[in-house]
């Protein structure tokens, strides 16, 4: 195998790791707070996912660029500083261009600062790897997180309101259909139930055959 082929293979591996093998939500169980809190509907889940992708890419770039300057005792401090700066910018952007979404998400946007996925990627990947790998890792992890959130939110929104992305799919009983809204799915209990079932399913699929 030539050198460039090895490189490309590594890029693909990094990208795919975030999507499935090391999916932050389903395999690493990181970032559970937004996963449970903002997945009552697909729209806020998607917005949250996009914010995390933005912060993840920006913080990975900065951390990767200054990785040679970092001393162990200042490491976490610098990570937090970087993440906090970009989360604040994401929050301001959301308030300016998506005011309704910003209100729906409420405190969960500033709370991205303490989202373990971002600090985990800064520590585990960006502070040890070059710029390109760090960006690919951020995209993989971010998209993996967003997709998981969207799947979870689709299930919950469909069961709670009969709609996905606010588009009515199941006809409600009051409109002559058969579907009765399951309000519990829109509440925290629905998030725990759905996430638990999803995690169980993923564990069955990935179980090593002994």
């Amino acid at each position, binding site marked *: 195998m030539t050198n460039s082929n090895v490189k490309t293979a590594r890029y693909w591996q990094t990208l795919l790791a975030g999507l499935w093998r090391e999916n932050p939500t389903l395999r690493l169980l990181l970032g559970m707070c937004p996963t449970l809190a903002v997945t009552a509907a697909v729209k806020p889940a998607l917005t949250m996912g996009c914010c995390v992708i933005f912060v993840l890419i920006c913080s990975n770039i900065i951390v990767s660029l200054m990785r040679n300057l970092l001393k162990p005792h200042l490491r976490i401090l610098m990570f937090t500083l970087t993440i906090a*700066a970009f989360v604040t910018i994401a929050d301001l952007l959301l*308030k300016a261009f998506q005011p309704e979404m910003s209100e729906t998400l*409420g405190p969960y946007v500033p709370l991205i600062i303490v989202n373990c996925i971002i600090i985990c990627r800064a520590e585990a990947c960006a502070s040890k790897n070059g710029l390109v790998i760090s960006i690919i890792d951020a995209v993989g992890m971010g998209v993996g997180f967003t997709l998981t959130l969207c799947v979870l939110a689709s299930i919950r929104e469909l069961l709670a309101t009969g709609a996905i992305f606010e588009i009515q799919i199941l006809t409600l009983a009051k409109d002559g259909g058969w579907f009765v809204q399951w309000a519990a799915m829109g509440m925290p209990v629905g998030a725990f139930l759905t996430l638990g079932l999803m995690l169980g399913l993923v564990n069955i699929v990935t179980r090593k055959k002994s």
Partner: protein
Amino acid sequence: MQQSWLLIVASFCFGLLIAVTNAALSPKIRQNEINKRNRMVTILLPEAKDFILLDEPVEIKSLQGRIEKVEIYKAMSMAGECVGWSFEATGSGFADKIKLVIALDKNFESIAGINVLASNETPGFGDQIKYDYYRGQFKGAPAGELKLVTIGERGKIDSEIVAISGATISSEAVVEIVSNSVTQIKEQMRKKGIIGNDKQ
């Protein structure tokens, strides 16, 4: 003290970055807030075209006993006449704060309507405070003390507000926020002579 300079430089750079973003976006954010409030008030006071902030400060004692400043807006019609008043009021709901926008008629005699700006009540139960069947009861209700009842007729417009079944705390919270703010503001507006003392 190794590498402290990095921290100082980074803090400065990030601070600058946030300051620039904030400076660029804050007019738009402020405008979004004003637009949202105006949109909500225009639903409650359809004749209103323009809103003027009242210069004189009005302070009310909140339900938790804090003194809060209230911004009161005078709603003006196309012809430049006062068609009503509006302000925002906040209080504790079942799960989180409830923020309401309240509109009154021009004499502060009756409530022109209320709307929920922000709330986090239980979906399917408490969040019905946003629904017309509950909110509609405030439309035309007298601007004074309101009372929450569990059994009654929602269609009848008076000072009795019928609670949402299964969400008495949320219903009660809204009634308390409205009663508390409306009575205090009305009294102060009368004292200042902004609205008339006697019915005309």
